[in-house]
């Protein structure tokens, strides 16, 4: 049972149940278009849900990733998991799978060739 208090205006939550800074979460929520006011309890819920999300993302990526044997987690592990799991599809915009610069240039060339042919 948590013995400490959660200060509304504190940047850092001193509540044992929540690790993320609640006021920062509020700022991010309000920067969403059209979001006006958020009930304090709703804020708690969102903060906790975000924590669970981070844990879930980390664990899923690690378990499905190639680094499991070597106990490491890489960018591509995360990217692969985001592509595979439906609930993570909203992330695909912000984490394109990295490709080598060389490959990218090749692809560009191909596209240019095709356009030239047309």
């Amino acid at each position, binding site marked *: *049972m*948590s013995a*400490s*208090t*959660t200060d509304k205006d504190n940047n850092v939550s001193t*509540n044992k*149940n*929540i*690790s*993320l*800074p609640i*006021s*920062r*979460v509020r*700022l*991010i*929520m309000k*920067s*969403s*278009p*059209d*979001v*006006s*006011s*958020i*009930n304090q*309890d*709703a804020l*708690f*819920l*969102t903060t*906790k*849900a*975000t*924590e*669970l*999300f*981070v*844990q879930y*993302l*980390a*664990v899923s990526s*690690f378990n499905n990733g190639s*680094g499991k044997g*070597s*106990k*490491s*987690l*890489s*960018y591509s*592990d*995360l*990217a692969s998991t985001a592509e595979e799991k*439906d*609930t993570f599809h*909203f*992330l695909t*915009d*912000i*984490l394109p799978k990295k490709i080598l610069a060389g490959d990218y240039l090749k692809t560009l060339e191909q596209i240019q060739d095709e356009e030239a042919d047309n």
Partner: protein
Amino acid sequence: MASSSGNDDDLTIPRAAINKMIKETLPNVRVANDARELVVNCCTEFIHLVSSEANEICNKSEKKTISPEHVINALESLGFGSYITEVKDVLQECKSVALKRRKASSRLENLGIPEEELLRQQQELFAKARQQQAELAQQEWLQMQQAAEQAHMAATSASAAQQAGSSQDEDDDDDI
């Protein structure tokens, strides 16, 4: 809350908080730096996702403020229904902690003593304290006086003894 750094899109959860969570979730796992950075951004994205969805649900309900119900429904519709039980539990914890704090601070108000009475009691205590101080000061003054008197008497008798002693000597001389 004024943010002096950049625009709203640069808002993210502090890196340190994320690092700590990753460490607790995946102990003994080496996590690449760009992976950590990615997790930070995913957080922001997740918060936007939930906020937007909850906001839509809120708008449909004709309420102006996003309520816990809206957030819970948003999680459900986004496919994060498995989080609902745990976040609800945490909410209960937070609420009970806040309730305890409020009870503690209002305990004084709930004594049932009206303000004038409290004021009167306070004045009484002050008066008592002043009296005690005065008595203490008086005692110290008396002690000082006594000490001064004794010192004076001691000095007087010492000089008297000296005078008496020197007149004795003269007599002795005469007898020779």
